[in-house]
């Protein structure tokens, strides 16, 4: 496998405000809006974009060939185009490979309108039709099972997870795009409605409508864009077993594998001291500490300590989810791409009130499949 990667960068980003329901916009409208916005952000024109990757999901959109709906809106008329069905971080991964493989620039755009469908049915559809779907498993109850294993294995309390909700909803107060900025206490979270033990309402991300886009460019086009390029230093993804009973849900081994490979590409050997900011996929509060362990920021079981010791607070050594994360706004499929957008803004110094001062190296993360079966890790750098 090749070690050195050509220089490629993110030169344009855009995201919508995440909202419970965008009554006045179809997803076609959202994609068009994001395509225009990301072009404006980058200073490039439609002519500079020579290929497009859209990200959509047929179940979410209620139509097969969901990509058909948005090709034109994504500026793909008379261009090469493809579609990844999965989290936007994976879509952007493909977009990056297409630039490394010869295209000058790739525009990647993801959309989702959770308000237009029933997310429980959509996520129930991830489960095996013969052995699991008829049990009624979906994203929330399966995630609750994972939280249960994780807590039990290491003796973690529900309060430790509640702290994550408090932090992230609080961080969201600085993020104009967030759906749910809230000033919460641990008690608020602990008293919120029990959904599936140990997950309570305020441990869950909301259902959101939203879209996001990025433009990835080769070195020449990175110079042409008007933004400060954010260089893609390392990218990797990995999937573990499918049946949740086959897995050790407390040990995110596919994330360990993906992060190690991304770090190797980026020349990073000590992740804890190499990153200035992390945007990870906190679909539920327990996921933040669990993924931090998988990312190698601490030993197994020590994830909650990172927050307890103040390290992952805005004021800490390694702020995690300054944007407020998914807990504050979760458009399925868009969310991983939004982590890349947020990380890019951080490294450009354009993150406004949620800026981590002097951020030079960021980690963005997305997941696919039940209970984080597959993880995609991005290492981004402000320096060449």
């Amino acid at each position, binding site marked *: 496998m090749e070690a050195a990667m050509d220089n490629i960068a993110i030169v344009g980003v855009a995201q919508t405000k995440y909202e419970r329901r965008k*009554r*006045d916009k179809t997803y076609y*409208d959202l994609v068009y809006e994001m395509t225009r916005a990301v072009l404006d952000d980058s200073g490039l024109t439609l002519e500079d974009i020579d290929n497009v990757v859209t990200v959509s999901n047929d179940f979410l959109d*209620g139509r097969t060939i969901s990509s058909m709906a948005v090709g034109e809106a994504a500026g793909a008329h008379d261009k090469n185009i493809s579609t990844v069905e999965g989290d936007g971080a994976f879509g952007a991964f493909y977009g990056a490979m297409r630039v490394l493989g010869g295209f000058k620039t790739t525009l990647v755009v993801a959309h989702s309108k959770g308000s237009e469908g029933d997310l*429980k*049915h959509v996520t*129930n559809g991830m489960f095996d*039709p*013969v*052995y*699991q*779907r*008829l*049990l*009624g*498993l*979906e994203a*929330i*109850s*399966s995630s*609750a*099972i*994972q*939280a*249960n*294993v994780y807590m*039990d294995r290491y003796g973690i309390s529900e309060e430790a997870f509640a702290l994550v909700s408090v932090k992230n909803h609080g961080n969201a107060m600085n993020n104009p795009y967030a759906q749910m900025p809230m000033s919460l206490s641990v008690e608020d979270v602990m008293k919120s*409605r*029990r*959904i*599936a*033990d*140990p*997950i309570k309402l305020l441990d869950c991300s909301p259902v959101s409508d939203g879209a996001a886009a990025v433009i990835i460019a080769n070195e020449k086009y990175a110079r042409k864009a008007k933004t400060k390029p954010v260089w893609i230093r390392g990218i990797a993804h990995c999937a573990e*077993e*499918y*049946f*949740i*009973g*086959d897995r050790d*849900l407390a040990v995110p081994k596919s994330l360990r594998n993906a992060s190690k490979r991304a770090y190797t590409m980026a020349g990073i050997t000590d992740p804890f001291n190499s990153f200035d900011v992390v945007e990870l996929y906190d679909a539920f509060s327990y996921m933040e500490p669990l993924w931090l362990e998988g990312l190698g920021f601490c030993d197994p079981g020590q994830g909650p300590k990172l927050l307890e010791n103040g390290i992952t607070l805005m004021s800490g050594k390694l702020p995690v989810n300054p944007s407020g994360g998914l807990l504050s706004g979760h458009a399925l499929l868009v969310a991983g791409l939004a982590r890349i957008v947020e990380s890019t803004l951080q490294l450009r110094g354009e993150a406004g009130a949620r800026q981590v001062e002097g951020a030079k190296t960021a980690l963005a993360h997305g997941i696919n499949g039940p209970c984080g079966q597959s993880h995609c890790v991005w290492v981004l750098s402000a320096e060449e």
Partner: protein
Amino acid sequence: MDQSVDVRERIMTTSLDTVEALTLKGQIAMPYTWWVGEVGSRFLIALRDDAKILGNSCSQCGKVYVPPRMNCGDCFSDITQWVELSNEGFVIAHTIVRFSYPLHPAAPPFAYAIIKLDGADVGFAHIIKDDLGKLRNNVRVRARFKDKAHRTGHILDIESFQII
């Protein structure tokens, strides 16, 4: 910039303030018939006809899977050895579900559990409905089957697992 695009944008942004945002309700109802396959069929038939739970084991790594598989995902080789598993095991993970959803097999509260059946190397996902107050990880459980007349070759031929 293209003039016609400009005009369209102006129309879109101003008129939506005064235009009613309509919605159209729809549902896709489509029938599916999933082929269970030979391996899966043998498992479901054993549930239906014999109230027995079958697994199978990989000849390379020895891992015993339930439900049984055609191949081992780790070794990527065919599995041919069948194993009759116990109807008993212990809970390795669980959650007590407190919300209602049409696809749930029971009314809340009920639990999902991952159960390590005696003889298996992986967990088996199913439900626990009774004695939720006693539900902890590591408790022993036993499968309670529906009576023969109601078993059809379905994962819920096992009505639920009972804490023993």
